[in-house]
């Protein structure tokens, strides 16, 4: 990389009279927009326009060839009347809650314990983050094999320790939780490491002070650790909700939404409409819009809470 190489330039470029303030501002703006134009193009076409287009599309019907036609609220009626609609929202909500339980509380606890350890920290951190690095498809296909009711690893282990085997993906009772387990396995690491970093930023004297006040370990966690990491906890909560509400690859690869729609999620249903049911992009967009509104509401709550916290 180049370093500061301004010295020779100084002699070469004689100082000109500074141009008028106004002209300088115009020039600065022009240069700035020159630098910005590529990003503006990317954002306009692939981030902002799709958001607007989603709103528009959800009131339209299109086959991508002929000009789209306006259909009013038809798309919304279509998806709301869909037999899987209610189930998809319930599943998404259940998935989010379960994933929060596993993917929010657990990594925090793990991080607290890890932070206390004086040995094998590097190894443990590496290991816990390993699944996060794998492409999700790897984790999903790996677990699909583990879940096999016959020679799958899980049932074999259950059998080995003398417990009754489970149907995993093949039962309405366990299918959703099986998906949550995969999702947790592959995402746990990032949560742990983020919390770990936050824990390391807690000044040690706070603990010392708490100890002097006679606080036991649990009390120290309650009165020092949690308040000190509150902001990050809040943030992660929202990020988790946003992330888990989009669940798609797990039902897509593992269950096809079944059995009995037990694992249909909103994102999965959206995909079905647009890419399986003969290109109903309008209805798919209507679902997408609903999901967007929900997620924006979550984000608004988060902003509010964070602001209060500050």
């Amino acid at each position: 990389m180049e370093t500061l190489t301004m010295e020779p330039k100084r002699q070469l470029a004689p100082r000109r009279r500074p141009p008028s303030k106004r002209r300088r501002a115009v020039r600065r703006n022009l240069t700035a927009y020159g630098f910005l134009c590529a990003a503006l193009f990317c954002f306009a076409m692939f981030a902002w326009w799709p958001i607007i287009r989603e709103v528009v599309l959800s009131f339209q019907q299109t086959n991508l060839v002929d000009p789209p036609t306006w259909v009013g609220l038809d798309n919304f009626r279509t998806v709301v009347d869909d037999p899987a609609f209610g189930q998809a929202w319930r599943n998404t909500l259940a998935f989010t809650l379960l994933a929060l339980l596993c993917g929010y509380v657990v990594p925090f606890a793990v991080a607290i314990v890890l932070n206390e350890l004086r040995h094998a920290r590097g190894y443990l951190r590496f290991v816990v983050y390993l699944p996060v690095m794998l492409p999700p498809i790897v984790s999903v296909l790996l677990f699909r094999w583990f879940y096999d009711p016959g020679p799958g690893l899980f049932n074999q282990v259950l059998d080995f320790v003398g417990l009754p085997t489970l149907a995993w993906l093949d039962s309405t009772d366990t299918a959703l939780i099986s998906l949550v387990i995969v999702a947790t396995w592959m995402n746990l690491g990032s949560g742990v490491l983020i919390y770990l970093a936050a824990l390391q930023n807690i000044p040690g004297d706070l603990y010392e002070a708490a100890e002097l006040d006679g606080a036991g370990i649990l009390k120290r966690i309650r009165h020092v650790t949690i308040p000190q990491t509150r902001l990050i906890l809040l943030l992660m909560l929202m990020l988790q909700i946003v992330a888990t509400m989009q669940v798609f690859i797990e039902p897509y690869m593992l269950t096809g939404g079944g059995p009995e729609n037990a694992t249909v999620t909103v994102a999965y249903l959206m995909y079905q409409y647009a890419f399986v049911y003969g290109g109903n992009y309008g209805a798919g967009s209507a679902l997408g819009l609903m999901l967007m509104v929900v997620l924006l509401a979550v984000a608004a709550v988060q902003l509010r809470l964070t602001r209060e916290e500050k």
Partner: protein
Amino acid sequence: MVNTTTRPEEATKTGAAARPARRGDRKKRRGGWADGHSRTIVSPLELRSRWGRKIYWTLLTAIVIVFTLVFVFPLYWMVTGAMKTGEEIAQMPPTLFPKSPDFGVFADAWELFDIGTLLRNTVFYAVGAWLFALAVDVSAAYALSKLRPMLGNVIMAGMLATLMIPPIVVMIPAYITVTDVPILGWHLLNSPWAIWFPVAANGFNIFLLKRFFDSIPDEILEAAEIDGVPPWRVLVSIVLPISRPILGVVSIFTVVLVFKDFVWPLLVLPDSEKMTISVGLSQTAGAVTQNQIMAGLVIASVPMIIVFFFFQRSIMAGLTAGSLKG
């Protein structure tokens, strides 16, 4: 908390804190392992007590075992599963080691999944995305941070706002946009640009970069400006060299993102010659045997694990930065 983004000095601090133990503050005593560590919930005194030690070592062993079982064993099962024969892999109860490990299965899987093509594609998309996104995002962040144009704040807010809306929510309109880019009429299906353009439209990267650039004192740049150095030279020879840590973080983010993405390439790169490794695996997994699938998964995991080995520090630093999104 919120101020600790990876600024130049902060980044090194994160690195240091990430190391197992920080020595030097205190003198080494016997049983020193209890001390060589910044103060946490449990005090060194408590740890050194008889019970403290017992509990500590038990807990440590238990954790190491559990973590290994939960996170490493599945991968072990994947690798050994690949090397078992069709009968052995379906055998109940399973064998812990393959009876006669068959390494040929990796070659089979390579062929069946056409992994050569898939990997080449994925690397091409990842590297292209990395270069393109870096070029676009760095110049944008530099403009927003140092040139401060009119409406700069509005633009930044608009970019940040996209973070609230995860990509899958706008999957359908984004897909339609890619099939027919407004005004320009480009058709990007099966084109690498279908990956590169959206990756560059990453508000978080721009935010991280801008925050970092903001911390570079304006005086340096003003001096250069007075000397008549054009802005792009200022960016290239002053700003970029001191921004290495954050460039590393953004680079890793981008590459990992492209490698791990599934739904988007599934939609926009359907041609079997253009597929990414994730999509390719999912398409062919139905047509091959269980041990071949596992072999395919093993091969697909290797590049990411290598990346992880080499860039562990950057990845971890990026995560901490990532957590401070709000």
